[in-house]
């Protein structure tokens, strides 16, 4: 079972992903994302409750970064652990994203921008 919760803190969109992010969920996520990307360019993915991610899920997170980067936006990650952490490490995607231990730290990292 997968769930994505969106909220805005200051000028940052926080997307909390829960459950298993696998291929069948990604199409809807990308559609939902369009709504936010048109207005905002700073994102935090909070992965505290994300138990599993596959190649499509990883592709969705990278797609978000690729979309906001040309506008000088960014995507940052908080609470990376478990299987998603292993996937980020083996694919070396962990070197692309700034990572934080808490959602708050990730959001605060954008202050002053």
């Amino acid at each position: 079972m997968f769930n994505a919760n969106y909220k805005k803190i200051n000028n940052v969109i926080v997307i909390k992903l829960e459950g298993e992010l696998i291929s069948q969920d990604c199409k809807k996520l990308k559609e939902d994302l369009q709504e936010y990307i048109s207005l905002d360019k700073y994102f935090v993915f909070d992965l505290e409750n994300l138990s599993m991610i596959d190649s499509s899920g990883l592709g969705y997170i990278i797609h978000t970064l690729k979309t906001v980067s040309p506008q000088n936006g960014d995507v940052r990650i908080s609470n990376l652990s478990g299987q998603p952490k292993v996937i980020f490490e083996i694919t070396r995607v962990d070197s692309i994203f700034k990572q934080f231990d808490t959602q708050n730290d990730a959001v605060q990292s954008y202050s002053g921008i």
Partner: protein
Amino acid sequence: MKGLIYIDEKYLINNKFDLIENQTLLFKICGKNVVEYYFDFLYTLGVDEIFIVGTELNNQIVKSDFIKHSTIKITALPNSKLRDCIRENNDLFENEQLLVIENIGFIFDDYSNKKSLEYNTKVSKGNFSIYYIEKYTKDMELHLFNQKNFLKIKSLESIKDYIKVTNKILNNLSKYDSIPGYTKENNIVIGKNVKIDSDCKLNAPLVILDNVKVCKGAILGPNSIIGQDSFIHENSKVINSIVYDNSYIGENLNIENKIVSSSNLIDKTDVEVYKVDGIFLSKNNRWFF
């Protein structure tokens, strides 16, 4: 000399290694089944007949590839506990020299060192024991034998034990003639029909088993074992890791301190198991060349 292999049923049924291999005795260490190491050991020490205790055990052993080429006589005995088995088959063992292997473990020593065998002794580590009986007589009690360290052994009761054994082998590669390989220079062992593309880097100690394909830009080792029939795609790194037989490692991956078996990724540090998408790594028999 006669050999006897006994594995308590609970180790065959309660398989600690099923993440790696479905059947207990068929899991491999550096490309060879555990039981194949037992056969090497017994054969080198002059055993001319091996008794296997139990149908389940015998069934697993006869499925092994190496058994087809073995010239040693193999006899299956009915299921029973070790001591009961020896007692019940007194007529087979009376006055014979006996080497008994009990349960699952690895023998590190040079097998040809017959001087290490001593009168009626055992060596035990955990649940793994080897007994040497110079001349078996009726009602001899194995558990009363003196414990001597005439062999270096390790019990295999968990994935952590498996990791320790492979680390020890990798750190002493030149000592082990029993590791299968075609070339063994500079602590890099390579098997038959291995294809390695340009720009690959191989760092010792490293074992690459038969029929492995390594694509360009890959970095293998140090401290790694690449299992038979595996495929390592371009620009991937495999360091301090074991890639089990028949695995596919995708492009641009960084596999460090892991065991890869099918789509299971086991972290060597904490022995956590992770399921990984087949696009990254999987069990597959396809060849790309």
